[in-house]
């Protein structure tokens, strides 16, 4: 069972990374326009017309 001593902290660390990523994306304003983000993916804004 000694394996838990480093496996559990690693699992926690992974969870914390996810949490940090979410908080960063929130701060970055990625949730300010949720509906827009859903439809912008369909627009060809990389193709110059």
């Amino acid at each position, binding site marked *: 069972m000694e394996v*838990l001593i480093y496996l559990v902290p690693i699992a*926690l660390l992974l969870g914390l990374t996810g949490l940090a990523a979410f908080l960063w994306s929130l701060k970055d304003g990625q949730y300010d*326009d949720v509906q*827009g983000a859903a*439809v912008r993916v369909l*627009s060809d804004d990389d193709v110059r017309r």
Partner: protein
Amino acid sequence: MADTLDLSIYVQRQGDGTAHLDLAVEGIDCAACIDEIEGGLCRLPGIVDARLNYTNHRLAVEWRDGAVSPTDVVEELQRLGYRGHPFRSRLVEEEEDRRAKWLLKCLTVAGFASMNIMLLAVSVWSGNVTDITPETRDFFHWLAALIALPAVAYAGQPFFRSALNALRNRRTNMDVPIVIGILLALTVSVVETINSAEHTYFDSVVMLLFFLLCGRYLDQAMRRKTRAVASNLASFRAEVARRIEETGEVVLLPTAALNAGDRVLVRPGERISVDGVVISGSSDIDESLVTGETTHRAVRAEDQVYAGSMNYNGTLTLRVTAAGKGTLLDEVERLLENAAAAKSRYVQLADRVAKIYAPVVHTAAAITALTWIMTGASVHDALIAAIAVLIITCPCALALAVPVVQVVASGALFRAGVFLNAGDAFERLAKVDTIVFDKTGTLTLPAMSVINAGDVEPRLLEAAGRLALSSHHPLAAAVAQMTQDRRPYGDVLEEPGQGVWAVVDGQEMRLGSLTFCGALGIAEKIASTDPMASVIAFSWGDRQTVLLVRQALRPDAVTIVQSLRQRGFDCRILSGDRSEAVAPIAAMLGIDLWRGNCKPADKIEALEALKADGRKVLMVGDGLNDAPALAAAHVSLSPISAADLTQAQADAVFLGDRLKPVQDTLEIARRAHRLMRQNLGIALIYNLIAVPLAFLGYVTPLVAALAMSGSSSIVTLNALRSRGRAPIMPAAPVASNSILVEGA
């Protein structure tokens, strides 16, 4: 000459040589609009960035300062087929945004913590019935403590603050027992961890927080959505004024740019957009949106005029007075203060429950401890059992019962075109038994319309409408609505004070006063059908007709008032208009109890009398004179066309030309209130089952976790029923003023 609006006060200059403008955009209906708007604007030279927020229909534009003017941006948008209204976010909204973000952060932390702790807790539970070693269990408990303590310290803040606030004001609310439960459960878990005991409650605590935060966040998000739409609508009808500069030049400005002391020009047919004193000029003005009075008032120099009045026939020069000055406004403000002070703070249903609930629960816990000690158990076991009672009764379902229903019900209201200002309005709306309507602008439409259109030959009416497009007179605006063809005739001449005329297909066409059109002969008969209406005549060659123009009832007013009366609501009218004008409306609606000539103070008096009879009054009103009455009533509604001050007092604002939202609001509120009480009932039953179990010492952390998530889910699912059948959203609101006023 085309007037262009000077929007510079809305532009924010940033340090790096770019300028920034926020616009609320009208007319966005599909995803393709994003590309069209952003692409279209970026083609303008000098634009650095244009970004549309598709969720709240706001556009942020940045450009190199000096390269384009803000007006160019708005004009380009207009060319693309959208209307942009400069927008400055209000303080309330920014505050709500910050709070929503904060709640979301707390929710995330609680979610992270509860998932990880649950992982550890499930291992301990399954280990306890198999072969977990005490060392491993202790290790898991310490890890759980390590996660739970900082997580609760952070994510629990909304509850700690609210509970502290309540205690400071010597009140209790639902958050007080929640905080007590959380803190006790944490303490006992830490102590048990130190004693390397079998059970800790870390998982229950964070899961509880997670559920509660879900409810709070959803509540906040719904309110924020409502507010965003409401403030977009407010910016759609942002008013403009013509300021006379020192040089004598006239510039068109948003009213937000005006200061007290500025001189403003108001032309005939324009709505006065500021409060002020007349310096020169004389005119008749229609103050029906302000006082409810439908007869026009003659004003001359030194007279006070109010924003929202319609200027009829003369050009006025006004001096802008500071907000809140003037006899009527002073009176309204004074009455508002009194009304707000007299209004006893309504105690919300959940807080009333909490007031009884908390002492009962705490007594139960004390009794548990005493009984255990008396039956010979150790103090430690007795305390654990008592604390288990407190944890299991921690009002998770109870605290979710009301906010979740509120979220779902305000969503239903939103779809019905009603925006809620106050969260607790549901409970007050559900108790309403008497409805008091204002007349002008509430039962009737705020704008004038032709009432005898059915009696007029359609071809004549169409022609009159097209000719009216060229007139600035407010009565003509009503006639202009009667035509489908929005192209004005060419070469229309306006005779001041008389009317407009043009030659069409070789025949002379006139619209205006009776003498101007030579229609005196037929006028008498038609006008006698409705003596209250204003008369406007139309002639085309040798054919003449007379149109009656008046503020008409909202199209569904009769049916809605009837159906409200059938449902047992006592409907009344209190109007600031003359009694002769109120009587026919009351008769048409079948309302027996009505009063005209009401000053703001009279309205309050009437409401107080109803209150003294033990009635719960819903006041529906729109005028500035209604604001104190709205504040004094048990609960209040106002149409979106209402004066700003009035809207701020109303508990909810409804959109559109119809009165149906009033009925929908009452129905949704009643359903919501029923569900809130059902939910509280469910929470109570849960406690009736859980408390005896805890009392007997059967509540292990596993049972606590199951009971809490089970009861929360049931309450949430029950709340979803308040959605009901989705009512149909009324047509888009009539936008009153365009930002760009195109001169003739």
